[in-house]
């Protein structure tokens, strides 16, 4: 029989809050340790317990970190969704299901489907740890997968031991439940499908990490000392991870914190705290998602106009309004580019990987202080909350760029200091920190009209001068943003542009299409540098791939880099699940 080795997709359908996440992670981690290229995505509901949830594992020789549109194996443990789930599976696929809670009619089973009925409730009677029975039932399908598809027994056991660490009772209970599943599968299942896992070596030097944890670690290494936040999915785990790192790595010898972490009463307050702390001279940040940015927008305008360093980490979810709060999108691109009333525009960074979450998070603090302005770290639920396989993180000795700050000695040296005087003609002025003990060290910060010496004014000339200088500052920033990353032949005439998590399926699309006339630029920052215009200019046609309805990055490109509107087109997905290469390839081929 033909085998399909390490190149297929599994969907596990369970009920939220029943402990399936732990089993799914055991499955995922076991594959990782076997050296199989694995990608795991959690499709979870906005709910604590009871609603349907799906976990998708895709294995591929290339280790792609994005899903296929179709799955090859469905493990159906949730009776509520089982009939829809099987309806979405193609002929010839494999269905493992909880056979004492789910009964399929004959007409639901498509030609060639391989059925593995797993009597979960019956087997649950064998579980000796009655208290954990509900959770442990999920180990049965792990055991069955181990038998049917070839998970390494000792690796699975090792993962279980590491998962529960010193909790021996939990380890024993999980191993017992796993064995019940293994024994049942060995005795009752005859393998008739083609899918198998085989040990490989694609994960050498790699780790499994969530983007939120990586961004939190980057914030720690970036020298963040003040975190003010308000809980909102999918950003909460970023703040909570950072607090965890703070507690572990930021205590002085007396056990006091070299940080302040404040859970604010709302997003307005967290933005205010970040701006207050940034004004005082601390590296400060908040974590939020789209609705939070909406609430913070008044403050963001203040920070732009009063020129206060501040970092806003936006883990995007599906809007508008509450939208789909546990699903992913890139729908705040325009919101963050221009957040607030009046003429405002902001620096944004777009990480695509775990390593970029770590490294760009550090860089956001340098940019915020160098340009004395809000900086947006734009990630999304997919990158933030899913487990990603990426190369190990690398330590670089930090060198903070605190920007143009005049201390007491610095003030002694300058003859004439004004907070908003453009001495260096780059639009960036010198600031002093509150508390600077110098007779001319103080200035008054305000969101109302101000002149070069930070004095209140309603003068049209002073106002215009200031707004023009802010433009100059933005122009300076353009030159210092991370460049786009280009793949493909320079002479290719069809361009793809994407950013953030869309990068992974675009890369896969390029691998599949092998079309030498297609090249690709991954944007990593806004404002766009000259390289972005050069790329667009060199193409006859440019497709901007993004995860929102309105082609927000395309709109931004059209307004910021004028003259190429006619050659731009969009490839848009906005259903809330992570983007797939299947979708991009199909859509792109339809447009070529």
């Amino acid at each position, binding site marked *: 029989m033909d085998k399909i080795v390490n190149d297929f997709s599994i969907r596990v359908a369970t009920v939220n809050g029943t402990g399936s996440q732990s089993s799914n992670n055991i499955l995922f981690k076991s594959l*990782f*340790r076997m050296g199989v290229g694995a990608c795991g995505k959690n499709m979870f509901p906005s709910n604590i317990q009871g609603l349907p949830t799906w976990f998708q594992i895709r294995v591929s020789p290339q280790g792609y970190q994005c899903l296929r549109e179709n799955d090859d194996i469905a493990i159906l443990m949730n009776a509520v969704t089982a009939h829809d789930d099987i309806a979405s599976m193609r002929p010839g696929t494999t269905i493992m299901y909880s056979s004492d809670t789910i009964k399929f009619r004959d007409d639901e089973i498509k030609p060639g489907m391989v059925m593995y009925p797993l009597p979960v409730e019956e087997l649950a009677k064998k579980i000796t740890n009655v208290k954990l029975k509900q959770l442990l039932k999920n180990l049965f399908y792990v055991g069955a997968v181990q038998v049917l598809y070839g998970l390494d027994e000792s690796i699975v056991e090792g993962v279980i031991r590491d998962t529960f660490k010193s909790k021996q009772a939990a380890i024993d209970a999980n191993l017992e439940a796993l064995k019940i599943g293994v024994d049942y599968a060995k005795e009752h299942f005859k393998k008739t499908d083609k899918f198998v896992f085989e040990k490989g070596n694609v994960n050498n030097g*790699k*780790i499994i*990490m969530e983007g939120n944890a990586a961004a939190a*670690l980057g914030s720690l*290494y970036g*020298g963040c*000392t003040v975190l003010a936040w308000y809980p909102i999915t999918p950003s909460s785990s970023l703040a909570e991870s950072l607090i965890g790192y703070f507690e572990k*790595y*930021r205590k002085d010898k*007396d056990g*006091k*914190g*070299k*940080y*302040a*972490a404040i859970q*604010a*009463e709302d997003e*307005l*307050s967290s*933005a*205010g*705290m970040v*701006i*207050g*702390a*940034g*004004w*005082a*001279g*601390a590296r400060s940040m908040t974590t939020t998602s789209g609705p939070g940015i909406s609430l913070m927008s008044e*403050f963001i305008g*203040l920070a732009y106009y*009063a020129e206060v360093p501040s970092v806003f980490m936006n883990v995007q979810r599906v809007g508008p309004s509450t939208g789909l709060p546990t699903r992913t999108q890139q729908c705040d691109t325009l919101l963050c580019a221009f957040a607030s009333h009046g003429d405002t525009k902001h620096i944004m960074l777009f990480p695509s990987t775990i390593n970029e979450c770590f490294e760009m998070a550090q860089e956001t603090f340098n940019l915020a202080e160098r340009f004395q302005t809000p900086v947006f770290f734009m990630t999304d639920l997919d990158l933030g909350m899913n487990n990603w396989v990426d190369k*190990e*993180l*690398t*330590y670089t*000795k*930090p060198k*903070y760029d605190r920007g143009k700050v005049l201390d007491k000695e610095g003030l002694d040296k300058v003859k004439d200091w004004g907070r908003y005087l453009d001495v260096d003609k780059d639009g960036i002025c010198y600031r*002093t*920190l*509150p*508390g*600077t*003990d*110098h*007779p001319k*060290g*103080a*200035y*008054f*910060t*305000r*969101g*109302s009209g101000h002149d070069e010496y930070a004095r*209140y004014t309603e003068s049209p000339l002073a106002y215009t001068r200031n707004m023009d200088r802010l433009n100059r500052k933005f122009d300076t920033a353009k030159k210092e943003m991370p460049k786009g990353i280009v793949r493909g032949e320079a002479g290719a005439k069809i361009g793809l542009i994407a950013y953030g998590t869309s990068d992974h399926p675009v890369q896969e699309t390029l691998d599949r299409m092998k079309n030498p006339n297609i090249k690709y630029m991954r944007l990593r920052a806004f404002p766009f540098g000259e390289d972005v215009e050069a790329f667009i200019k060199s193409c006859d046609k440019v497709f901007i791939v993004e995860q929102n309805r309105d082609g927000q990055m395309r709109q931004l490109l059209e307004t910021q880099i004028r003259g190429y509107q006619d050659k731009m087109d969009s490839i848009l997905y906005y259903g809330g699940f992570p983007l797939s290469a299947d979708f991009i390839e199909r859509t792109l081929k339809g447009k070529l």
Partner: protein
Amino acid sequence: MSETKLAYQKSDYTGKPSTLCKGCGHDSITNAIIESYFQLGVNPSSVIKLSGIGCSSKTPTYFIDKGHGFNSVHGRMPSVATGANVANLKLPTIGISGDGDTGSIGLGQFLHCARRNVDMVYIIENNGTYGLTKGQFSATADLGSKAKRGAANPYPTLDACALAIDSGATFVARSFSGDRKQMIALMKAAFSHKGIAVLDIISPCVTFNNHEGSTKSYLFAKENDVPLHELNYVPEAETIEVEMKEGEVRSIELHDGSHLTLKKLDKDYNPGDKGEALKLINESIASKTLATGLLYYQPDFPDHNTILNICSTPLVYLNEAELDPGPDPIAKLNASMK
């Protein structure tokens, strides 16, 4: 306060000329702030002064030019002050707000700032009206009080002091902008308090709320002001003034070792009793009198920076050497995430 008083001149505490209406109560408050800082000898460069939006929020430009000021957004001064205060716990922090800023748009931030016991002085310049937008009612306007055009306020008043006490503020006082002596005594005590000190100062609006029928007019306040105590603030290094007779004096030790002495007038008032404070405020609202003085004082509750366990070096001055966890945590994490 370790600085000697002689280190600074009074002129070190002045600011830009006021652009408020002539005779505005807020200017009296500004003058009392200047006098209080001067008397305490606080380094003017160390002071940070923050505000929201409104007439009151313009006043930080009228005092201590030598300190950094921040006129932020409407109702959000508390969060900006909280952020600045945790970032640099060495800076004496004063926030100036108004009744619209605190009682309406910023009510949530005010209460949470009180609840966190942020180490700051929070002054509400309370005139019961929106001056800058020309005379609309604020939430602290009294039930039945009349607006400039004669309409009576149909809603009950929010009492900033009662709300602050309920929310966990540890120093809550009320005063009147016409009573300079009391204001200065309360301010000096407030500046010495570790934690939030809320001062609700009735400050009649000369333009929009100083007419017959308004309970926040100058005349009304002057005639209905019932001081709780005659206050006298005594820094640690000095003796209690002799003119006070024993038995009349209640001495409260502040966190920095200085003392606030309360001179009882007509009743034995205990500012350490939350229930009594709230009862007094409720009676005050019912009887339309102004009970002024230190309404509530709780010196034992830790301030926000203590709650957060922040190190003594201001966070803003920590550098790479102090903040970088080094390569080991990354090596360990890399090893554990497999």
